[in-house]
């Protein structure tokens, strides 16, 4: 029999009782494999459960992801959490309700349809029947399998989902601990890792004697090229780590590099989206680029680990506790069943940052100091320069215009460093200290993220526009020794920037207004709607000349070509540096589970994208990342923040779509187009720093 299939999470863990428990009186405890990354996902999931069970939101407690207890739901990434986990939990809650009502019916002699639920109490014709979820729960068979055909409540009846439920977690941590950084155990040792200053560096020497004299309370722990400073007093260890350079020397080992990275290669995949007449005469051929981008979490990566009785427990703010567990086990020669990883919230990570690396760091030290709890925290410099970076990439677009002024042929070629190298991707550990322990674990062959997962370098490489001839070529360049991995929106950021800038360049040649020119090529109605709406919101005037340091620009995309639609208009002034004055955003993310949360995600994403676009590129010299802190890697500040107006187009019948990454590409493009508009010349390489613009203006005059 075929029919709709179970959400992936439920196929992997089909047993009802693995997801939900009514064992604590008055509480509904939910297990999810998803983790809170500051995006408010747990409250949104709790809302969905509360809605189906018709209980107060406060009763629902979403327990932290834990490899021992939680269902495996893979990584919390790619704006999939609401779509996938939300759908799974909705079924789980609906089926629990049905099972509880069945027991209530048997007990009370009423039919299940006659019984209604009121915050866990059961009533018939408005009268309590003296039964509630918690007294009935022990009689339910929680081993029953989750059934896709379970009826869920129609969304028009929703009272909790769809409201801006508040997040208690953030408020609590305003005046108390609660982040992983704040965990402490008796007898705990602090460790700081002296990281390899470049990929596969070999530890040449340590001046142990001088170190011992200067830092008598700090021990040195070395395993191959893994080097940790360890002590009971955090500041002593911190201070020693600050001066590590004075005691430790590293050398390159060319033999290692070729062994680990061979065969270094660029692999290309070409896809024909639409076949017509390839261009004979191109109107534009332009290359757009961005450099490496740091995730730049405000809290440095941190982890704790404790090895007792052959079992290792690790506390981590990883996005994927199961994959991390498997890789830690493999690196340390432990059986995965003897390793437990428990999620504890860290600061926002925006993709795959140093969280997993730190977890392995702590695990290694804990295995050396058996029985002693260990806490590792990264330095600011390591956080910005030694974790995985967002991939550098370049996207080239060649396009031709037909006699009617519409695009007749379009070819996009993107070349990118690997966009996804999470623990376990491609069978590699992809953990910094795994390479320090054994250089042979460095990945040899790296693939792009598959299309099914939204693609990596290829994410949004296919424009949403209807072009009669449309070709896309995606190349993964694995030659760089820089470690790169997922950064919010992956390749979509630059691909959308490139597509949307190219559309503006073509509109100028065609003599058409940029929005009108886009609409000509757009059949997707929801895309047209956000574009039209953002034009209305911003008072877009077709043919606005711009120039003299003042400009406006637009950008639009559908995230992953299957997620939320977002159109942006930016207004900028350029006077040496770029200042974004205003941003208008129009979003279609389907039905909203938590409107205020969705808005925060969209506007937060927009500001982060503005920061990447105007300021950010990690300096790399001879394949080495320079040590960074916030003064040589500046990010957007309060004084740089524009006014933002956001509007959602909401159709209650449309399924909710993740919103967290939708703004990255369109906002960047809107800013780029606005700056070009203001300058009367094209900017194509990010970031649009003062230096870059000055260079550009000078070379234009020359």
């Amino acid at each position, binding site marked *: 029999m075929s029919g709709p299939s179970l959400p992936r999470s439920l196929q992997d863990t089909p047993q009802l009782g693995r997801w939900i428990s009514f064992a604590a009186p008055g509480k509904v405890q939910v297990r999810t494999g998803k983790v809170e990354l500051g995006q408010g996902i747990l409250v949104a999931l709790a809302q969905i459960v509360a809605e189906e069970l018709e209980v107060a939101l406060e009763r629902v407690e979403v327990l932290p992801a834990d490899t021992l207890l939680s269902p495996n739901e893979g990584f919390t990434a790619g704006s999939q959490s609401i779509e996938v986990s939300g759908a799974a939990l909705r079924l789980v809650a609906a089926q629990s309700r049905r099972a509880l009502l069945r027991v209530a019916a048997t007990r009370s002699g009423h039919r299940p349809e006659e019984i209604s639920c009121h915050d866990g109490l059961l009533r018939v014709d408005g009268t309590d029947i003296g039964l509630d979820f918690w007294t009935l729960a022990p009689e339910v068979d929680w081993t029953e399998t989750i059934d896709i055909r379970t009826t869920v409540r129609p969304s028009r009846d929703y009272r909790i989902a769809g409201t801006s439920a*508040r997040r208690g977690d953030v408020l609590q941590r*305003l*005046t108390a601990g609660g982040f992983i950084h704040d965990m402490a155990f008796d007898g705990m040792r602090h460790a700081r890792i002296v990281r390899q200053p470049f990929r596969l560096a070999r530890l040449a020497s340590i001046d142990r004697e001088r170190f011992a004299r200067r830092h008598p309370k700090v021990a040195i722990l070395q395993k191959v090229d893994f080097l940790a400073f360890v002590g009971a007093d*955090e500041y*002593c260890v911190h201070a020693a780590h600050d001066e590590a350079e004075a005691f430790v020397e590293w050398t390159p080992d060319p033999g290692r590099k070729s062994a680990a990275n061979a065969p270094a290669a660029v692999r290309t995949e070409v896809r024909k989206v639409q076949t017509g007449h390839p261009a004979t005469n191109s109107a534009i051929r332009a290359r757009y680029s961005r450099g490496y981008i740091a995730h*730049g979490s405000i809290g440095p990566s941190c982890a704790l680990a404790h090895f007792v009785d052959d079992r290792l427990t690790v506390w981590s703010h990883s996005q994927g506790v199961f994959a991390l567990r498997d890789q830690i086990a493999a690196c340390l020669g432990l059986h995965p069943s003897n390793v437990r990883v428990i999620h504890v919230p860290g*600061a926002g990570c925006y993709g795959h940052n140093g969280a997993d690396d730190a977890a392995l760091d702590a695990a290694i030290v804990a295995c050396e100091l058996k029985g002693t709890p260990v806490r590792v925290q990264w330095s600011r410099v390591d956080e910005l320069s030694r974790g995985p970076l967002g991939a550098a990439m370049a996207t080239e677009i060649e396009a031709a215009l037909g006699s009617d002024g519409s695009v007749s042929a379009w070819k996009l070629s993107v070349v990118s460093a690997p966009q996804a190298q999470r623990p376990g991707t491609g069978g590699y550990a992809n953990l910094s200290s795994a390479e320090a322990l054994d250089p042979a674990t460095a990945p040899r062959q790296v693939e792009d993220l598959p299309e099914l997962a939204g693609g990596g370098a290829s994410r949004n490489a296919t424009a949403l526009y209807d072009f009669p001839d449309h070709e896309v070529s995606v190349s993964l360049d694995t030659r760089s020794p820089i470690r790169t991995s997922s950064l919010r929106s992956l390749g979509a950021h630059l691909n959308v920037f490139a597509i949307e800038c190219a559309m503006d360049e073509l509109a100028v040649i065609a003599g058409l207004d940029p929005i009108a020119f886009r609409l000509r090529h757009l059949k997707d109605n929801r895309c047209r709607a956000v574009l039209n709406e953002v034009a209305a919101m911003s008072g877009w005037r077709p043919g606005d000349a711009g120039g003299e340091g003042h400009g406006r620009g637009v950008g639009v995309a559908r995230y992953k070509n299957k997620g939320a639609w977002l159109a942006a208009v930016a207004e900028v002034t350029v006077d040496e540096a770029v200042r974004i004055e205003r941003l208008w955003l129009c979003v279609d993310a389907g039905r909203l589970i938590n409107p205020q949360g969705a808005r925060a995600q969209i506007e937060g994403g927009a500001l982060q994208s503005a920061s990447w676009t105007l300021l950010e590129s990690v300096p790399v010299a001879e394949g080495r990342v320079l040590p960074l802190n916030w003064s040589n890697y500046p990010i957007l500040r309060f004084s740089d923040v524009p006014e933002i107006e956001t509007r959602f187009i909401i159709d209650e019948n449309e399924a909710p779509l993740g919103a967290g990454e939708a703004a990255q590409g369109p906002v960047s493009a809107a800013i780029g187009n606005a700056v070009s508009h203001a300058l009367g010349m094209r900017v194509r390489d990010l970031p649009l720093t003062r230096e870059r613009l000055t260079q550009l203006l000078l070379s234009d005059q020359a």
Partner: protein
Amino acid sequence: MTDGSHATDGQPRCRINDSDVALEADEPLLFTLRNRLGLTAVRFGCGLEQCGACMVLIDGEARHSCALPASALDGRTVVTPEAIAGDPIGAALLSAFELEQAGQCGYCLAGIMMSAFALLTREINPSRARIIEVLDGHLCRCGAHIPILRAVERAAGMLGKPGA
């Protein structure tokens, strides 16, 4: 710089959230607050006085605690985020931050609140430009700037109302 051993003689003393505390001489205040006194709402972000996550009040002024040697604090009064709820300004800020749902991950927030606290102690109705000026040394990577600004304005509004 440390020589790795902490002096214990001639210990400086200060008041922290209404308790008398003896300080380790050569340790930045942040480490004392977090590790010896368990005041973990004071956050380590950079240790370089660049991000504002570690902000506390020293004699009523917002100061970074991450690089400030404890020896400089003899006789001073320190207030951390843990202690602000009892003060009307702190209470207003907390409730405004909640109402505006200011903050995504929240890591930057406690420090930001301390700077806002110092501002609202001195200025009754600061303009948005003034709030931006005061918060400009604080970094927020989640892009929660706008709700944060709204929250500070809202707190100021609550305090300005009679009977608040």
